[in-house]
């Protein structure tokens, strides 16, 4: 190896390390605050790690606060949204990928439009529509809204996964007498499982983080999701940083688990889509 190449390699590794540190440092700080005892919080504000660690904040959040309830609500909402969206967008994405039909142009246009306009615009009208139906302050109302918001993008994503699977496969099955739906279910769906996993994870993360509609549509503690619960913490008179960050760590766990599970597929799936498109 020449000297120039060694320098280039070292620079490359240093740059990667800088990115990793930048990405992880804020999360590290959340963890640090969540294990710092209250009496050391201010006196050791700038230290990288407190001289004594405790799990009191976690203990309080799990046993004496409403966060387990918020966690359960968020889990119900995000999982249901992710499963429903994945099913609907698999069907829709398959239609977009395999058929050319009258009105397809307008349907694609409509879905693109939904990606363009400010969703905050819908906050007031959706509240007005859902309120007489009894769907405000309820988890099912939230699920309904989240499913609709996530379906367009998920459909495009699924379409790109279907585009990567040769058409001959289901055509062969249909020549052998299977209906298209059977061919879709038994041959194509198993092949797109990685794509469906990616969609599932993507939508889960989106629903898990949604804040503004949850704030507007939910007012009671019973149906509060995690973001709403955490923000009500901030608006209290004195903020208990330790408890807040302990709750934050809890909110982070499912999102990160889902992310590590899908992140391999993300680049792959988008590569397949990019090659096709």
């Amino acid at each position: 190896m020449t000297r120039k190449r060694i320098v280039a390699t070292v620079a490359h590794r240093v740059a990667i390390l800088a990115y990793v540190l930048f990405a992880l440092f804020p999360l590290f700080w959340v963890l640090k605050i969540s294990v710092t005892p209250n009496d050391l919080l201010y006196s050791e504000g700038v230290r990288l790690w407190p001289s004594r660690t405790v799990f009191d904040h976690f203990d309080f959040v799990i046993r004496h606060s409403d966060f387990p309830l918020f966690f359960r609500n968020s889990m119900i909402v995000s999982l249901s949204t992710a499963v429903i969206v994945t099913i609907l967008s698999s069907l829709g994405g398959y239609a977009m990928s395999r058929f050319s039909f009258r009105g397809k142009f307008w349907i694609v246009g409509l879905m693109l439009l939904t990606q363009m306009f400010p969703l905050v615009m819908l906050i007031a009208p959706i509240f007005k529509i859902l309120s007489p139906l009894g769907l405000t302050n309820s988890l099912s109302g939230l699920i309904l809204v989240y499913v609709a918001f996530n379906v367009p993008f998920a459909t495009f994503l699924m379409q790109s996964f279907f585009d990567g699977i040769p058409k001959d496969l289901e055509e062969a099955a249909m020549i052998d007498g299977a209906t298209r739906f059977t061919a879709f279910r038994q041959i194509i769906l198993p092949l797109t499982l990685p794509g469906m996993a990616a969609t599932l994870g993507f939508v889960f993360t989106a629903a898990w983080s949604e804040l503004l509609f949850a704030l507007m549509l939910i007012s009671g503690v019973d149906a509060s999701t995690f973001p709403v619960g955490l923000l009500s913490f901030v608006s209290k008179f004195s903020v208990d940083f330790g408890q807040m960050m302990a709750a934050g760590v809890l909110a982070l766990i499912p999102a990160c688990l889902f992310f590590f599970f899908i992140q391999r597929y993300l680049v792959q799936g988008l590569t397949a889509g990019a090659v096709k498109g």
Partner: protein
Amino acid sequence: MTEAVNAAPYGRDRRPFLRRLASASEPYLYSAPALILIVTVMLVPLVIGISYAFRDMTLLDPFSGGFIGLDHFRALAKDKTFWQALKNTVYWTGYSVALQFCFGLILALLLDKPFRGRGLAQALCFLPWAVPSFLSGLNWAMLFNPIVGPIPHWLYGLGLMSAPDNLLSSPDHAMWGPIIANVWWGIPFFAITLLAALQSIPRDLYEAAAIDGATPFQRFRSITLPFLAPTIAITVMLRTVWIANFADLIVVMTNGGPADRTQIVASYIFTQAFRRLDFGYASAIAMVLLALLLVYSMLIVLLRQTLLRER
């Protein structure tokens, strides 16, 4: 093959009528559930929302709902906060997109080279993207807080600040708080899409160029950039619209303050609807934002077409 069957003249298609109907309606059946939801939960409220802009609409007043014409828009023209928010939106969107894109591109280029531990490095670098936006808002608000966060002390130590104060409460620089949080959170999105595009470039092109004696910079300019250009154009455009609408970080970190210096149009809409419950005024602001974004998208499409024609 499907297209051939569907397009066959009716005389030659000997399948029974019901079968034919079933196969003709198949694509609609597959896409119907998604479509019905999009229309009822997004399109209908959108139309209703547009009608609110011309009505006197506050949630707590049962006598509201009357048609008031352009009154909201007249009030809007005189609303100083709105004009400030418009300026802030441009600032917020411009810096966020530019920085996310630059750092995202560099990260994608770094991760495109094979090295030991690449999988892990990639997963860790992309991790901020999985962090819920409200949490990254709280997280960065805490880092900027001089009581529990290190950043003010570091800036003070470097001599960039005269005292370790909270950046978020400084009227002149508060906007940088949400922008930095947004950049941290959004780099992975650009890195993921650009990395995907990078990996679809055929490797033999680089080898051929290297044999011909092209320098790394020449290779980047004449192979990488042209291949990435379409992805860059689409992602930057979509991201710009998305970030202009993205109010979460601002609502969480500063709530528009101090003195509306970090209020962007999207967060102003939310404030009007959520805190003041003035749905009519909120919808009027939203319509202006929608119109501006439409103009922006049209300009981009036009620009793209002229560029393509010149080629």
